[in-house]
């Protein structure tokens, strides 16, 4: 309540309706569930009435199919394969990306020398490498891991490189004046400072690792969720396609969540700063 400075009296209380955007978390969750159900209902109703069931299937069938796959265990080997490829590609790509990013960020000569080549590669849509990678690494998991690795590498590399370049020179100078050795400057200043950039890179690259794995499977595979989508599509099994898409979506959400947890742990100093 505000006090009127001139008269010293209380200004009349203005009763304001709380803004919709400020509603509590629990209520918002209920509303979101409502939207979700509404979408499913529209889909269910439209199916077979507005659009043929053949093209869009319907939520009930998709749900049934998911249930069957879970009971029979049919989906799990495929899910595991895709998960494995994604994580392996993500880990490999990030490791190489972070290391090379830090190295080139620090080594000015090498970064100037290699810059045009890296940029040319960066501009290239990495998905186009898929056939080549299948040729090199075969139909197995390796070719998918390789594709995910290449995609993740460039995203993480560029973020790390930029992060290292953004490090405050005054901070580096201060620590060097304290007789810090090269690796100490790296450990205490450069890497922590670049950490938020690195994490941004890691975070955006998670869905791309999944894209790499799935695209690899779409092109040539006999296992995995991408392979499954491809096969269901070829069989005109729309219900199956939707069911696999749901599984892929859930996998993507789970992976994103893992990165977020890691980041919150990493950056306590930033979270406490307001």
């Amino acid at each position, binding site marked *: 309540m505000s006090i009127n400075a001139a008269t010293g009296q209380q200004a009349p209380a203005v009763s304001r309706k709380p803004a919709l955007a400020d509603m509590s978390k629990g209520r918002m969750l209920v509303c979101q569930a409502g939207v979700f159900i509404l979408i499913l209902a529209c889909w269910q109703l439209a199916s077979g009435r507005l659009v043929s069931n053949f093209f869009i299937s319907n939520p009930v069938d998709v749900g049934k199919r998911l249930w069957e796959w879970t009971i029979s265990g049919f989906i799990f080997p495929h899910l595991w394969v895709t998960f494995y490829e994604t994580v392996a590609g993500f880990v490999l790509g990030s490791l190489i990306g972070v290391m090379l990013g830090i190295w080139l960020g620090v080594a000015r000569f090498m970064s100037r020398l290699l810059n045009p080549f890296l940029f040319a590669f960066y501009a290239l849509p990495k998905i186009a490498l898929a056939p080549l990678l299948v040729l090199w690494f075969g139909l197995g998991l390796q070719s998918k891991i390789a594709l995910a690795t290449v995609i993740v590498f460039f995203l993480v590399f560029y973020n790390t490189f930029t992060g290292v370049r953004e490090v405050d020179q005054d901070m580096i*100078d201060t620590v060097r004046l304290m007789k*810090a*050795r090269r690796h100490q400057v790296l450990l*205490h200043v450069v890497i*922590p400072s670049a950490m938020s950039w690195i994490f941004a890179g890691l975070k955006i690259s998670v869905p791309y690792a999944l894209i790499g794995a799935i695209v690899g499977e779409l092109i040539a595979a006999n296992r995995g969720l991408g392979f499954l989508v491809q096969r269901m599509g070829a069989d005109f099994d729309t219900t199956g396609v939707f069911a696999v898409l749901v599984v892929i979506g859930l996998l993507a959400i789970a992976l994103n969540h893992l990165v977020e947890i890691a980041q919150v742990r990493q950056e306590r*100093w*930033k979270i406490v700063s307001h």
Partner: protein
Amino acid sequence: MIELRGLHKTFDRGSEPVEAVQDINLVVAPGSIVSLIGPSGCGKSTLLHMIAGLYEPSSGEVIYNGRPVVSVNTSVGYMTQKDTLLPWQTVRDNVALPSRLAGQAKAERHRAAAEILGRVGLDGFETRYPSELSGGMRKRAALARMLLYRPETFLLDEPFGALDAQLKLAMHELLLRLWKEDGQTILLVTHDLVEAITLSDRVVVLTRRPSRIILDQEVDLPRPRDVLNVRFTSRFKQIYDKLWDVLRVEYEEERL
């Protein structure tokens, strides 16, 4: 011993070069406190950067203990105008960083950090992050870091600028006390003439850019000095007036 010989520094800013420092010759005796004073942006910080070996002079040279400074000068501790605490480390870890780099044991450096933080009035803030501190507190933490690792020479760039009057006096006293114990060489950049005279053996007045020395005034006030009351002595006033006469011209010219 710090010797500046015919020091010039020119920066390439855009199309035209900016001359920051012009023909500076200065000898700082070991264990003495020398203040550099002059209008803002007159190249005082540039001078400190060159002594620390962070900038290369355009011509002339910096001699430190008989050797020319050609790379980072690790004998000096440099407290820059901007506080350079590491945001991802707690106040304690920041203050203890030099000891950590030197390989000191954790318990020992934490104990030493806690003690020095107490002396700059930051007890209880050991586990906070710099972003949780006010500007003045961050300055004090940066000062504590330097006081703890005790380099041979202190380069202080307006270290007490953001502090209130009482705290400033307390910091002056702390600095003089530690200086008496360890006898460092201290080079201090300041805008505060009273501060400069109170602390220093010599006050060097620089002109506005490009920076030259126009007055090198000895401060022959007896030590130990009472940081609060020394300013009320007649000798202090004489020195103050003499310096101010020169400095005023520089400030006036700057305003025109």
